[in-house]
């Protein structure tokens, strides 16, 4: 072949062929996921965010482990906006309820919304992104335009409109649908771009050559090899969904006041910012720490799964 003339060929006497071809059999097996796992275990941020996420999940599942004070009953107006006393470390809300207990019991609301929205965005995003990227042609054109339409409406504004329409029946599921229905196009875009890259690989061509069906190639080979960025963006979208819930509740179009939610507590506390800032600061702190732990985890995952990001570190 003519192009061989341009190739650099190592002189035999300098680099013995046996050495070039030798394979270190005792070396540990490796792939993207193993590499990523090894990289993550070296980073303190992984342990910090992992511990925080574990704690948040435990608080959401078993609030009784963390506080014995009921969040809604036994609220005395005598304690309205009261300072911390023994047994009530963060003081009292305007209604005289324990701030700490309300934060503990509000955790499951935030986490549920976060998880439902994330499942929804990941599901829709993977569906649209995978089909658009893999099958291409007219299907790509149609799916991508549909994605563009949903992408063009900022998801919080869309959720505001949806929640205004459904003002009569607001609950966790409706709220999660309102956020998730407009948040998926970014996931779809990321996956589509990754699939476009992966589907031209040699192993895909090899599968086609031995007669594997297109759908099977997508499920067995292309999707598993392009899912890494989706995992990263999904972790980050969990944080975004939790913040979105709080923002909507703060605006008064989230969950009704009967739900215990950090956003509702912040909404109720805003008029007393001057004389009882603690009722606003502590739920905000809980919200920020939760968002931060998922964002840190997403960051660690991104650095571990994307070799380019690792190089930039």
């Amino acid at each position, binding site marked *: 072949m003519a192009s061989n003339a341009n190739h650099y060929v190592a002189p035999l006497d300098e680099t013995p062929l046996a050495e070039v071809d030798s394979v270190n059999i005792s070396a540990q097996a490796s792939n993207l996921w193993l590499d990523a796992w090894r990289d993550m275990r070296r980073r303190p941020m992984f342990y910090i965010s992992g511990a925080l996420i574990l704690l948040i999940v435990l608080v959401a599942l078993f609030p009784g482990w963390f506080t014995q004070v009921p969040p809604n009953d036994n609220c005395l107006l005598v304690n309205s906006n009261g300072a911390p006393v023994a047994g009530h470390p963060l003081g009292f809300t305007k209604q005289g309820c324990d701030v700490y207990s309300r934060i503990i019991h509000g955790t499951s609301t935030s986490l549920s919304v976060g998880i439902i929205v994330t499942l929804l965005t990941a599901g829709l995003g993977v569906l649209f992104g995978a089909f658009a990227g893999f099958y291409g042609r007219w299907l790509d054109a149609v799916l991508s335009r549909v994605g563009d*339409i949903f992408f063009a409406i*900022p998801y*919080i*504004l869309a959720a505001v409109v949806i929640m205004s329409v459904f003002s009569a029946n607001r609950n966790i599921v409706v709220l999660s649908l309102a956020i998730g229905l407009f948040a998926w196009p970014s996931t779809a875009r990321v996956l589509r771009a990754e699939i476009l890259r992966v589907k031209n690989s040699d192993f895909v061509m090899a599968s086609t050559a031995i007669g594997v069906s297109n759908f099977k190639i997508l499920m067995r080979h292309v999707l598993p090899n392009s899912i890494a960025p989706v995992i990263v963006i999904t972790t980050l979208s969990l*944080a975004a969904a939790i913040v979105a819930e709080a*923002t909507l509740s703060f605006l008064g179009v989230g969950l009704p006041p009967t739900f215990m939610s950090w956003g509702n507590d912040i909404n109720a506390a805003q008029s007393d910012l001057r004389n009882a800032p603690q009722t606003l600061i502590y739920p905000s702190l809980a919200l920020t720490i939760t968002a931060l732990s998922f964002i840190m985890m997403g960051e660690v995952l991104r650095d571990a799964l994307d070799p380019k990001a690792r190089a930039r570190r």
Partner: protein
Amino acid sequence: MFGYILRRLLQAIPVFFGTTLLIYFMVFAMPGDPIVALFGERGVNEAVAAQLRERYHLDQPFIVQYFIYIGGIFRGDFGVSFSGQPVSEILASTFPVTLRLATIALAIEMVIGIAIGLISGLRKGKFFDSSTLVVSLVIISLPIFVIAFVAQLVVGIQLGWVRPTVSGGAPWNELILPGIVLATVSVAYIIRLTRESVIETRGQDFVRTAYSKGLTSGRIVRVHILRNSLIPVVTFLAVDFGVLMVGATVTEGIFNIPGVGRTLYQAIVRGEGPTVVSFVTVMVLVYLVVNLLTDLLYAALDPRIRYGK
């Protein structure tokens, strides 16, 4: 270039109709008859109701109503607010204030974001860089209303440096604090994006060539690295415009700034559905136009975009 502009404009058409149709459909699905609601508790006068229905085209099928509405948008008619004032009139009086706030916020986030991002990128792995990364993560995690309340509490109430809420005319100097608050939404992303971009550009062959030619490092950073690193930042600003609009809604609501955002904020808080929808539609249209313009600007800045594909 002309082909690219044409293609991009054609792509915007289905998105325009899709988004407006989607929003309009949501309003259509809104429970309750608006005409019946107008009569309040007095009971419906059928003749008047029929006349009103005809005037507002409510007797027409959905798709006809939609096209009447779209026709209105092209003539600058965005509907009427809850209190009966035309939305376009409200926009005319509130938009300058929001523009002022957005200008301050954009200026702050561009200057600070690009400066810190550039220094971080040039000192990759050093103390300044790693502490910037940690701080930026914390800023990203802070919801805008938390930042706004803390700023109001600390700077406005406890330190007493500025008025906690903005006065009627919304002068420039009183908008500085809300502007900083609004800027924090995106400044962390701009820092990170600039940093990544600078690190990538710094490794390119043309930078090495510039060094080997003997150019001063100041000139290389300014002309070769910074200029080439800013292209992704420009695109980000357009995509981020949606976040900025939501942020402006919350910021203007909290600091009581008489802009477009506060009008939407108050409509949301008071549950005035139709006003909310009109304003969201306007914002989505602005968002579409901004994104279209940025894509064209992007193509002008980076020849690879217009010749690619």
